[in-house]
């Protein structure tokens, strides 16, 4: 609850870390019947140290937007700038991804997985073990450093994926539904860990989710996305300092915000479901 944390809630006063300008993503040949507009003219500014959430119905294009921000996908139109530099490809030194499915290499132990990641950050080999241990301890997984990913549960693997992103030391974390495969309880606990991490390190986090409670619990700001093509319907602010405590969920404000998100998204969720139904019939 220090003033430093308080001030982060007002992104307008902070330096902009990531700027998305008129980004549009079209899959397939323009004009053809197969063409799919995934993202439609999205503009956003994300402040340094902000926890920013992209919340929208399944399949709306929010993951595509995240991949564009991280340079994994080149947008059809528009630009993304990170620290005033235009994004033209992946940004291993600036942004680390955590995906919905584990991307730990199953043929390497946890230590080896972190080792290759650190190698490409040009971290000296002598520091690998230390950095790995430190990152693992922040998610309570130090005991598993020499395990293979397949020896861990899904929840543990996601913790380790998060720890690998932390170990690389990038300022930005891009998280694509990282806890979607977990049960609700583990999800909330990992969310708490993430909030502590944000408070401690001041990382900038963009978090994609379709969980209303997760979005409200974690975010400084929530961008509510429309059904495909993804547009920003509204941005909600959550004025609550990090680290977020479980007691936050019990406050009336939490429920109000969650309901507000649901009210805004409700029609979009229906639209997205109808769209998917139509696709299946086709």
């Amino acid at each position: 609850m220090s003033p430093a944390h308080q001030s982060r809630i007002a992104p307008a006063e902070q330096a902009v870390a990531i700027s998305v300008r008129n980004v549009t993503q079209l899959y397939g040949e323009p004009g053809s019947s197969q063409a799919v507009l995934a993202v439609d003219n999205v503009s956003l500014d994300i402040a340094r140290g902000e926890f920013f959430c992209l919340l929208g119905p399944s399949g709306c294009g929010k993951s595509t937007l995240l991949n564009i921000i991280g340079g994994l996908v080149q947008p059809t139109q528009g630009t993304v700038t990170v620290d005033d530099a235009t994004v033209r490809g992946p940004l291993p030194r600036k942004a680390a991804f955590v995906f919905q499915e584990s991307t730990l290499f199953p043929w390497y132990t946890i230590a080896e997985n972190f080792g290759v990641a650190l190698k490409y950050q040009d971290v000296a080999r002598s520091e690998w073990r230390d950095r790995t241990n430190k990152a693992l301890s922040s998610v309570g997984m130090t005991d598993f450093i020499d395990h293979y990913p397949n020896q861990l549960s899904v929840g543990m693997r996601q913790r380790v994926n998060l720890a690998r992103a932390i170990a690389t030391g990038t300022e930005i974390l891009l998280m694509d539904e990282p806890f979607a495969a977990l049960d609700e309880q583990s999800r909330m606990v990992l969310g708490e860990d993430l909030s502590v991490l944000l408070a401690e390190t001041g990382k900038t986090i963009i978090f994609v989710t379709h969980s209303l409670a997760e979005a409200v619990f974690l975010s400084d700001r929530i961008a509510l996305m429309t059904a495909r093509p993804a547009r920003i319907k509204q941005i909600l602010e959550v004025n609550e300092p990090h680290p977020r405590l479980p007691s936050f969920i019990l406050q009336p404000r939490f429920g109000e915000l969650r309901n507000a998100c649901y009210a805004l998204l409700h029609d979009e969720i229906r639209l997205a479901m109808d769209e998917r139904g139509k696709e299946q019939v086709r």
Partner: protein
Amino acid sequence: MKDISSLSARLIQLGIFAIAITAWFVIGRTGAIAPLFVPPIDAVSQATIVLVQTGAFWSSVRVTLMTIAEAYAIAVMLGILGGYAVTRSRFLTDVLEPLVSGLFAIPITLFFPLFILGFGIGAESKVAYGAAYGFFPIALNTIAGFAGVDMRFLNAARAMGFSAAGTFRHVLLPAAFPVVFTGLRIGFFICFASVLGGETISSLAGVGRSIALAAELMEPARMYAWIAAVVAVALLLNKMISLIESRMRGYGGNGN
């Protein structure tokens, strides 16, 4: 629990083996099957002992092993390089994979006379024939292995800034390895069988030739002695490969 079941499995395997040997012994004694087809077991073991003491035996074995080694080396080299090259393009993979697997469905044995015509009845024709047969499973598994690498690992490598060489070494190679290794194993046994088969049909020397010759000269005990030698080599090689495989276990694969 697992120990008991694997022990009983072992016992059953040994039992089947004992029954087969006993049956062979009884058949030999009673003459139920003409000794020309199934000679008595003691005659075969006698012939085997005599055979392995001859210089001709070892020179035949050497010719065959050399032929297999050459054929397999060519199959591995072309299969892996060709297979890998194909997977570097999605388009090439889609075009060539069905073509290669379609060709593999054709019995290459049909073209054996062509190999004799082209390379003569010396070892070269068997090298070419074995290499051609062994190439297919190796190339197909190499394609399957490298084309089947999970995109999420490649994406992660890209996001983490891996170099092209690093992506190959840390992602592509270990992910594809188990599938490629299976191809190498299948390719080896196909190569082994093709060379021996080719030798029995048309050749100047080698184990296959010796087996065919023993049959033609109506020396069944001698023929079975040769076969026993081949079985021993095959078992030994199989054991070696399983050892390599168990060492590799836990390594590689597209698991979660």
